[in-house]
């Protein structure tokens, strides 16, 4: 990288990339507002500092700290969205969405349909999420499958800082309600992030690694584990193609099918509990479309079917890790 020319990218942790996306969206469009617990600078700019500086730059009218009232937060976002704003509502941790599921699923998701498209709910709900920090069972869940089961919602999970910026920008300007899931374990990992406007469209998976022997489909921070696992597999002569879905709804099924048609073997990896996780949907869809060309069953690797345990060795055993990915991929190839 030359210092003489304006750099195209800067190294930023994901949490800063998210901050930039919001900042730039707010600068570009006065309809973008932010609401959530502790989001304003007088409250520290968010517990993970994702909204730091925004209230100072854009004012506390547009960046509003709220009481601890998730139904009120999402409800206010919905009403303001119908009335023409583009609210970004923060639910501090994904597990807490459980107290607001009615607003999210019975209202945000359904109001366009129930009104025959007379109203729209272009909100973005940001949630930090996931295990790995020893926060225990109520601060560690990945619940994207709940939301993917609800027609009307879009569901987005970035795997790296650049995508976090680009996908969040898409969510903010999308005409439909989007849930944007930010795995806390990824917040502080740096990566190159494009400076200035950067949009990653929803519904476009990325091929993170090309390969011929199996397709590993993943999303969120597990993509990185899949890539590292692929390096290990390559040493054994197994070439994995790694797909990063980026958004689950809309789903880039074409890209998935193209890859699996080529490799004839697929493994789906995600952090959420396996039972009724998004991997089940993917497995079913891949099988429905490609049964005759598959060399073996689509395999799934997710978390164990237990509440997230506190103690570190248990939490480690709960999560799908690199070693498990390698093992699962080997079994897929050996079928």
């Amino acid at each position, binding site marked *: 990288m030359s210092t003489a020319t304006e750099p195209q990218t800067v190294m930023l942790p994901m949490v800063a990339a998210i901050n930039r996306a919001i900042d730039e969206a707010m600068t570009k469009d006065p309809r973008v*507002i932010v609401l959530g617990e502790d989001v304003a600078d007088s409250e520290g700019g968010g517990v993970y500092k994702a909204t730091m500086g925004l209230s100072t730059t854009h004012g506390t*009218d*547009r960046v*509003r700290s*709220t*009481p601890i*009232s*998730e*139904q*009120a937060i*999402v*409800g*206010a*976002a*919905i*009403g*303001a*969205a*119908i*009335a*023409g*704003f583009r*609210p970004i509502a923060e639910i501090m941790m994904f597990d807490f969405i459980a107290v607001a599921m*009615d*607003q999210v699923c*019975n*209202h945000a998701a359904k*109001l*366009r*349909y*129930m*009104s*025959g*498209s*007379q*109203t*729209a709910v272009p909100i973005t709900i940001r949630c930090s999420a996931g295990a790995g920090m020893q926060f225990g069972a109520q601060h560690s869940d990945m619940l994207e499958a709940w939301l993917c089961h609800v*027609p*009307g919602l*879009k569901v987005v999970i970035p795997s790296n800082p650049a995508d976090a910026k680009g996908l969040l920008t898409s969510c903010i300007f*999308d*005409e*439909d309600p989007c849930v944007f899931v930010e795995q806390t374990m990824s917040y502080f990992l740096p990566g190159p992030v494009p400076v200035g406007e950067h949009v990653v469209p929803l*519904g476009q998976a990325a091929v993170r690694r090309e390969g011929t022997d199996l397709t590993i489909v993943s999303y969120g921070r597990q993509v990185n584990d899949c890539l590292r696992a692929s390096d290990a597999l390559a040493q054994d002569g197994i070439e994995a193609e790694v797909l990063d879905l980026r958004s689950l*709804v*809309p789903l880039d*099924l*074409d890209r998935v099918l193209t890859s699996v048609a080529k490799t004839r073997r697929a493994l789906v990896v995600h952090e959420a509990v396996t039972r009724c996780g998004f991997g089940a949907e993917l497995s079913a869809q891949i099988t429905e479309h490609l049964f005759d060309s598959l060399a073996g069953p689509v395999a799934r690797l997710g978390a164990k079917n237990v509440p997230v345990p506190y103690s570190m060795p248990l939490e480690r055993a709960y999560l799908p890790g690199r070693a498990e990915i390698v093992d699962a991929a080997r079994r897929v190839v050996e079928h």
Partner: protein
Amino acid sequence: MTPDRVALLGMFETATKIKQCDERFRLLLASGQIVCTYYSPRGQEIIPSAFSVLLRPDDYMVTTYRGLHDHIGKGVDLRGLWAEFLGKRSGTCKGKGGPMHVTDPTSGLMVTTGIVGSGLPIANGFGLAAKLAGTDQVTVVNFGDGASNIGAFHEALNLAAVWKLPVIFMCQNNRYAEHTKLADGTSVERIAMRAAAYGIPGVTVDGNDPIAMYEAAATAVRRARSGEGPTLLEGITYRFFGHIMGDDMKYQPAEERQAAMDADPVPAFRVWLLAEGVAEEVDLAEIEQRCDAAIDDAVAYALAAELPSPDELEDDVYAENLA
């Protein structure tokens, strides 16, 4: 802020239209000519009538499954409304929403929800939008006495108070939540007493008294419009025909119901208008005929309208249909 003649006649017209609409619905349902879930608002006509002459079309309203009176009061077109209840394509919401989910942005009727209490947090969003946009639009959200016991009520009132939102929380206290008497589920005698928990005005009024209701609503609207913040308004009323059409109403003492029906607010309003010399018999009869005609027209329109086609099922889920 007493209502002038125009306001009073406007209120009477709204009340009459609601009453007649309800009567027509129940008639057609009872005779099997139409089929739909139906939550009768009969007996609760006065509250929306007051707002009908106090709100502008660009003011926002949110209501519930028991919303027909509010829809009419806010000015939702009767043809579309009837067609929506009958599930027709030309209904307000293309037949997709139905009676519990009428939306009509043209008249400012923004959301009708079937989930008890859930309209209140959303109403705050309309209030927030008005505040941020710097307009003086007011939002009215209607809900029942029973709804005052659910969490969303509490979160919404607190946030509205903290943010001083231009929202009127209109509790239509008809003394029953489905089959449960007010006192059996609610720990205060007057819902408006709960305003103290949010440091905002809480006002209880006879929701069947047109003057009292108008004055209380006017005060709340003025307060909201001038940026002074939310009000919790409680109108005491009564639901004549049970929770839902078909309900056996056994849990409602017959005498209590009879007493309420004897004090039917719409004919009482009529008597009062004549007695006070606000209007002549002929004026009121003309209003009644106008309402009747409008309903005839809407019913005929809705009955003749087409049902949607199954092809339309997957539209309107997202801005653009997903692959």
